[in-house]
């Protein structure tokens, strides 16, 4: 609390949830609301909380936050015509075999890694989630590091760190974004043929131009080298 000024504008309050004094990545979207929208958001959250206090559905609170999150991010990229990574075509590669015979590779930008194989961003060992959030600008400018996660890795050996999104759900249950158990189950059931030996994860808050120009082709080759017939992408 020591770094909070004695007076605070509504804008400062909104921004404090996005890497500020009250940083909470579940609510960093408040940065993208107007002051009036922020007031309406708080009012809706208070009303939903009061309903829960009187026996209402706790999901109401989640839904209010979700609806405002969607509204806030709808325009966060600005004019679509000026979006630097916009494509006007949609390249599509057709599957050449049925899913029951296909080998699937999983790639996610969740920031997961295997315990003992920490990517050690910026050469730092055991970086905390809080520090990752503090250094988000450095991550966004840095090279991407891909972590290989053998698909049979026990869930309790999987770690996560990512300065760009709220990781508590992904830490509590990696399957929310890294669905290794479900994919293995689908193989056992015969719904898909097999899995690539490794799944891959990286911190998606990274230099986007490098991903398009360099990492994209390299990682596509990685999938081919693993014999994958298709890739399931789960961006965060």
């Amino acid at each position, binding site marked *: 609390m020591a770094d909070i000024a004695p007076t605070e504008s509504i804008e400062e309050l909104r921004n404090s949830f996005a890497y500020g004094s009250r940083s909470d990545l579940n609510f960093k979207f408040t940065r993208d609301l107007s002051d009036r929208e922020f007031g309406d958001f708080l009012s809706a959250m208070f009303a939903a909380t009061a309903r829960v206090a009187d026996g209402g559905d706790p999901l109401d609170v989640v839904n209010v936050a979700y609806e405002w999150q969607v509204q806030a991010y709808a325009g966060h990229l600005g004019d679509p015509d000026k979006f630097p990574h916009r494509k006007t075509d949609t390249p599509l590669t057709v599957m050449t075999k049925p899913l029951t015979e296909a080998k699937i590779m999983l790639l996610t930008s969740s920031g997961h890694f295997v315990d003992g194989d920490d990517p050690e961003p910026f050469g730092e060992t055991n970086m905390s989630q809080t520090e990752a959030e503090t250094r988000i600008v450095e991550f966004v400018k840095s090279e991407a590091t891909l972590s290989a996660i053998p698909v049979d890795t026990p869930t309790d050996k999987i770690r996560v760190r990512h300065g760009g999104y*709220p990781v508590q759900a992904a830490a509590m249950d990696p399957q929310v974004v890294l669905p290794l158990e*479900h994919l293995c189950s689908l193989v056992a059931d015969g719904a898909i043929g097999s899995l690539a030996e490794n799944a891959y994860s990286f911190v998606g808050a990274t230099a986007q131009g490098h991903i398009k120009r360099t990492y994209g082709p390299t990682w596509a080759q990685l999938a081919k080298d693993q014999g994958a017939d298709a890739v399931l992408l789960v961006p965060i």
Partner: protein
Amino acid sequence: MPTVSVYVKSFGHIPELMGLSRSVITQHPMGRPLGAPGDGERQRAVINMALGLLANSDPTIVEFPEPYRLA
């Protein structure tokens, strides 16, 4: 390489902007694209929908029809 992606609705405008071939959009909060922690049934349903799109030979963006739920 055939691909399919899963996005939360907050970023559901990205697949079209970036010309992605096949995408599922979920009505889930950021950080939980496949479902809530512990909601294996929902997580599997989203994965099944996504993998099902791989057979499509035309660009496809679909929304998973069910709202977020707690486990």
